[in-house]
């Protein structure tokens, strides 16, 4: 984007402005574009989540507002904005009002390094992945502020639990990322994607068994960082109130929820870049625009598939209790992540360029898992007898 900004300032319609002001304007414009895109994606995710849950639960989900209910998220958003803005009397007002924005900054800042296509990335810094890890830690500050300033014991409990959870799960996530970085030698997101290919056996997911394990480690840790089930104790339980966000209403609570759904997309985007080959497609045309479009769609669909898997997991699994959550992190994920990284380093030392046999073998293993999964799905479908309907309506 640096080149784009320079071009606009030197020859384009921003000529005549001082260079720094030009940069600020360009960055602000792209930030606004990105914000609109991410907020839309987060909103649509909320609608899609409800539809997916509903189908899993044998019901229908929102299907009245707009075609198939696709505008439900707009209606929810408008409703939330129109609600009364309640700041509790005894709450710490500046912290209370500022907490959603901090959480928002934490998650939104990470989108500066998400590569949507080969050329469409806001800032291709050479410490991309590390930057993402660092910026998402701001969300912790936001949640702690929310919990403390609400002047509510439940909120405080929820906020502290959430903070402990997010900080603990940064470690296995970072270790999993490091496993990938071992193989690429670069922290830059575009660099990591360029090391992969468009074919599934060229993805890092199937590169060798250690990156395969790293994928699952990263996904679980990322779910925990995003406060999603099975790790959503701070927000959905805390004794049946909303946890750190209990006292929030209207627009502020909407911002927290948008952070949660947008975070899902961020997790999907990082997973895609690191493990699933990013925007890589075979070079089938010279037309840059069409190629860019296909790359964008590929990246978006891969990231959204991970979002779908997160929704599916949320509908399936129960919550983990807080002490069990900590046990899972420190006694299971961290040692496994360390062992995985050491084995990956050994593998890298022996085979610096990997081996096509290992890649194809891992791909076959993945396919085998998928076939086994579909087998189980068919078994359950066959076992459930056809639907009985006593009432003639159905």
């Amino acid at each position: 984007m640096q080149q784009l900004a320079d071009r606009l300032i030197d020859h384009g319609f921003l000529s005549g402005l001082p260079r720094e002001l030009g940069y600020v304007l360009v960055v602000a414009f792209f930030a606004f574009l990105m914000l609109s895109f991410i907020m839309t994606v987060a909103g649509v995710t909320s609608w899609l989540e409800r539809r997916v849950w509903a189908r899993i639960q044998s019901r229908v989900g929102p299907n009245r507002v707009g075609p198939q209910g696709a505008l439900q998220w707009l209606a929810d958003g408008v409703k939330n904005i129109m609600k009364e803005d309640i700041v509790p009397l005894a709450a710490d007002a500046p912290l209370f009002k500022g907490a959603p924005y901090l959480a928002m900054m934490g998650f939104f800042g990470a989108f500066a390094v998400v590569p949507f296509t080969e050329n469409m990335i806001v800032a291709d810094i050479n410490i991309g992945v590390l930057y993402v890890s660092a910026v998402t830690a701001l969300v912790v500050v936001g949640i702690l502020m929310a919990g403390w300033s609400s002047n509510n014991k439940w909120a405080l409990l929820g906020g502290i639990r959430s903070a402990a959870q997010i900080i603990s799960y940064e470690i296995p996530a970072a270790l999993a990322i490091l496993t990938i970085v071992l193989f690429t030698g670069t922290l830059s997101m575009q660099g990591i994607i360029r090391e992969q290919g468009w074919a599934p056996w060229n993805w890092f997911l199937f590169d060798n068994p250690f990156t395969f394990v790293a994928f699952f480690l990263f996904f679980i840790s990322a779910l925990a960082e995003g406060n999603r089930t099975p790790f959503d104790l701070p927000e959905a339980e805390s004794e049946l109130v909303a946890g750190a966000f209990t006292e929030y209403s209207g627009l502020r609570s909407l911002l927290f929820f948008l952070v949660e759904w947008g975070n899902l997309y961020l997790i999907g985007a990082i997973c895609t870049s690191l493990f699933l080959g990013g925007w890589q497609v075979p070079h089938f045309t010279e037309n840059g625009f069409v190629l860019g479009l296909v790359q964008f769609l590929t990246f978006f669909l891969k990231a959204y598939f991970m979002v779908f898997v997160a929704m599916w997991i949320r509908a399936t699994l129960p919550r983990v209790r807080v002490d069990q959550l900590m046990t899972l992190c420190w006694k299971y994920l961290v040692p496994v992540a360390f062992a995985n990284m050491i084995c990956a380093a050994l593998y890298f030392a022996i085979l610096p360029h990997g081996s096509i046999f290992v890649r194809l073998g891992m791909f076959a293993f993945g396919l085998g898992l998928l076939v086994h999964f579909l087998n189980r799905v068919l078994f359950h479908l066959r076992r459930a007898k056809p639907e009985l309907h006593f009432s003639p309506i159905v």
Partner: protein
Amino acid sequence: MGYFDNIRESVRTIFEGMAITASHMVRKPYTIQYPDRVDVRVQDTLPFRYRGLLDVDLEICTGCLACERACPIDCIVIDAEKDKNTREMVLKRFDIDLAKCMFCGLCSEPCPTGSIHHTPEFEGADYSLESLIRRFVKAPVVAYKPIKGPETNPEIAPLLARGLRYLDEFASPGDAS
């Protein structure tokens, strides 16, 4: 070793659970999207014994007050007195307070003709409490006197048939089925 057993057990059960939910995603949902996306009127699909809102067929009411006595909540108020001149029962008032009614069916059981009965109607919500007091007598009417043999009056016969069919559903002692 318990450590690896835990991991294996978690992976296995989570895999199985995800397969079950995936199988549910492709099944037909159970929801009936009432009231605007159903093909038939729901009231027409309910069983005959359904205990919906109460209705009184005043043409076959005998004024015996059995329903008023049977109701545990005293939501039925009937004014019936024997006219001194014509020696006939005259019904002056038959009010059912549906706001109090708990749809237990104890009133429809002792009715001799099935005049008070439950209908499949269940959409009774309204904005005023007054409208829930159903007043079935508009002007004083003469109560029905059951005759021996089949009823010939064409206006009353179908009502009586329906009422007796409703009462037939109730089990009676000594009734072999």
